[in-house]
């Protein structure tokens, strides 16, 4: 542990971040930009300098302060020390790794991918999705399995799941009611089918292969619901032992890892869009962390896929208390004779429901509810579909006169057969800009009545002019991405060959068969039934 002796590592990592941010800022602000600003220009990351500086200054300052504290007085074994002070050094190192992946390694791979394109015939960086999320996980896996995670980093790595949960809660602010209603509807149907189907399949296979009931129980929860957390939640009701958990965690990480690396390229080949991939990953990938990772590997620069995948993931997490109850009843029935003899207490369903309810999902729901009141958006802004709109009259939002003439001429051709769309276009010509979100939808719909690409671009342009980018949401989105990047580097560092090797025998067989079937069947379900996009 980091504790019990004075450690300078947190202070060192904090100072690295602080110095980096200050040097980068000074190089950018200099009359002749310094080499770091020039490097950012070469790597095409100049637009991110403000983010790099602010995260470096804030993160570096906080970690340095705790670093000084750790240096003066060693972190002991109090709860605060374990949860806050001890993880600082590892957290600092993981932020540095996130910086390297996002602002240096990914851009270098982008340049190499384009440079090698003439020789290879394809852009290998784009084809293999070598973005900072994937690179962060891979670096984490290589790191832990080669040099190993040093003692001073271990507590930091263990905060990865906390960061991921903070990312999911913050994500709650990014949905509109329309999106949530639509995604919620399709996710409930898909998830109910797959969670119940998988749980039953595992219980049946466990009985067929004569696997001990405690191991079958935790495998059922883990494979059916959301991976490691579900297995841990189900463990007490099926009286699972440490060895059962070791098998289950190893198997869940192994199958999750395979899903993480295979889902994105398969989806690209299948031509899946954000909605389809999000639905597939949120249903088919076993472990929650790998769902977010796969969504961000598929689409790292917008959050659309992540939004879909997390709704599916959250829907299945909400099934956790019910699955635990089902497993408790199933386990009690198997033990009936012994239990009756021992006078075992009845299963307290209400208590299980409360105990096992995932509180962070409640955080996601509360954040969404807050966001829906418009508290995070400035006055006159409204989240509609995936964009914020501000339709308040403003000269800057007006469509050019020559484009308005094109629209007028198009109306006069009589090609727009939908009276509402026609009326929306007439209003656009009269007002020179879109004045309501409903009108924006109708103007976009008018694209269906023409094959003229220029005219379609005019409609899209009129809509884009009333889009807005609220600063509060922009900042929350940025730190949410840092939570995920941080969490996923930590996830990589938790995937050790030693853990995966534990996934042997019948547990691995069940994981591969049922996990594989879940992945394949959910792929076809998405392919057949989920059309369109969000």
């Amino acid at each position, binding site marked *: 542990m980091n504790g019990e002796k004075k450690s300078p590592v947190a202070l060192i990592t904090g100072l690295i971040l602080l110095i980096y941010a200050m040097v980068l800022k000074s190089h950018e602000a200099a009359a002749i930009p310094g080499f770091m600003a020039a490097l950012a220009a070469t790597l095409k990351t100049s637009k991110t300098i403000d983010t790099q500086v602010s995260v470096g200054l804030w993160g570096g300052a906080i970690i340095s302060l705790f670093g000084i504290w750790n240096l003066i007085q060693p972190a002991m074994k109090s709860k605060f020390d374990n*949860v806050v002070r001890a993880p600082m050094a590892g957290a600092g190192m993981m932020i540095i790794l996130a910086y390297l992946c996002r602002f240096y390694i990914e851009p270098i791979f982008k340049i190499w991918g384009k440079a090698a394109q003439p020789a290879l015939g394809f852009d290998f960086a784009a084809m293999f999705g070598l973005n900072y999320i994937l690179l962060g996980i891979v670096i984490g896996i290589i790191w832990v399995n080669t040099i190993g995670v040093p003692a001073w980093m271990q507590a930091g790595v263990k905060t990865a*799941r906390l960061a991921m*949960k903070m990312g999911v809660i*913050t994500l709650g602010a990014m949905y509109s009611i329309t999106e949530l209603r639509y995604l919620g509807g399709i996710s409930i149907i898909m998830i109910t089918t797959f969670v119940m189907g998988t749980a039953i399949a595992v219980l049946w296979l466990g009985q067929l292969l004569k696997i001990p009931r405690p191991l079958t129980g935790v495998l059922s929860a883990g494979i059916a619901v959301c991976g490691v957390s579900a297995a*841990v939640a189900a*463990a007490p009701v099926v009286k699972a032992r*440490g060895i059962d958990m*070791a098998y289950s965690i190893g198997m869940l990480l192994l199958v999750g890892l395979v899903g993480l690396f295979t889902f994105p390229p398969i989806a690209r080949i299948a031509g899946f869009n954000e909605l389809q991939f999000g639905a597939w990953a949120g249903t088919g990938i076993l472990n929650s962390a790998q769902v977010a990772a796969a969504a961000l590997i598929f689409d790292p620069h917008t959050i659309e896929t992540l939004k879909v995948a997390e709704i599916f993931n959250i829907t299945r997490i909400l099934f956790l208390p019910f699955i635990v109850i089902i497993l408790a009843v199933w386990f009690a029935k198997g033990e009936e004779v012994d239990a009756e003899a021992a006078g075992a207490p009845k299963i307290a369903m209400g208590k299980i429901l409360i105990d096992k309810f995932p509180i962070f999902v409640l*955080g996601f729901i509360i954040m969404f509810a807050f966001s829906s009141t418009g508290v995070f958006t400035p006055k006159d802004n409204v989240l509609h579909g995936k964009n914020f709109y501000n339709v308040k009259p403003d000269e800057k939002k007006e469509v050019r006169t020559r484009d308005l003439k094109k629209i007028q001429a198009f109306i006069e051709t009589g090609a727009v057969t939908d009276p509402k769309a026609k009326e929306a276009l007439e209003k656009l010509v009269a007002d020179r800009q879109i004045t309501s979100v409903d009108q924006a939808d109708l103007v976009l719909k008018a694209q269906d009545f023409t094959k003229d690409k220029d005219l379609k671009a005019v409609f899209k342009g009129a809509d884009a002019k009333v889009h807005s980018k609220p600063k509060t949401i922009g900042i*929350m989105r940025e730190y949410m991405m840092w939570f995920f990047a941080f969490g996923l580097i930590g996830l990589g560092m938790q995937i050790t060959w030693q853990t995966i090797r534990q996934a042997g025998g019948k547990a691995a067989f069940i994981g591969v068969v049922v996990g594989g079937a879940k992945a394949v069947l959910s792929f076809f379900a998405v392919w057949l039934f989920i059309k369109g996009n969000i």
Partner: protein
Amino acid sequence: MAEEKATKEEQKQMEDRALSVFASEKKEDMTALIISFVLAVMVLIAFK
């Protein structure tokens, strides 16, 4: 009593295996919830 203690010990070990600095999933969730909301409020105060 001894059995209950052993079960609790085992559960603690399982949660340790799930790799978290927190003593239980519930505490981890509560911490995530509180930090996320504090950050959101700070963003609101600073930027809205």
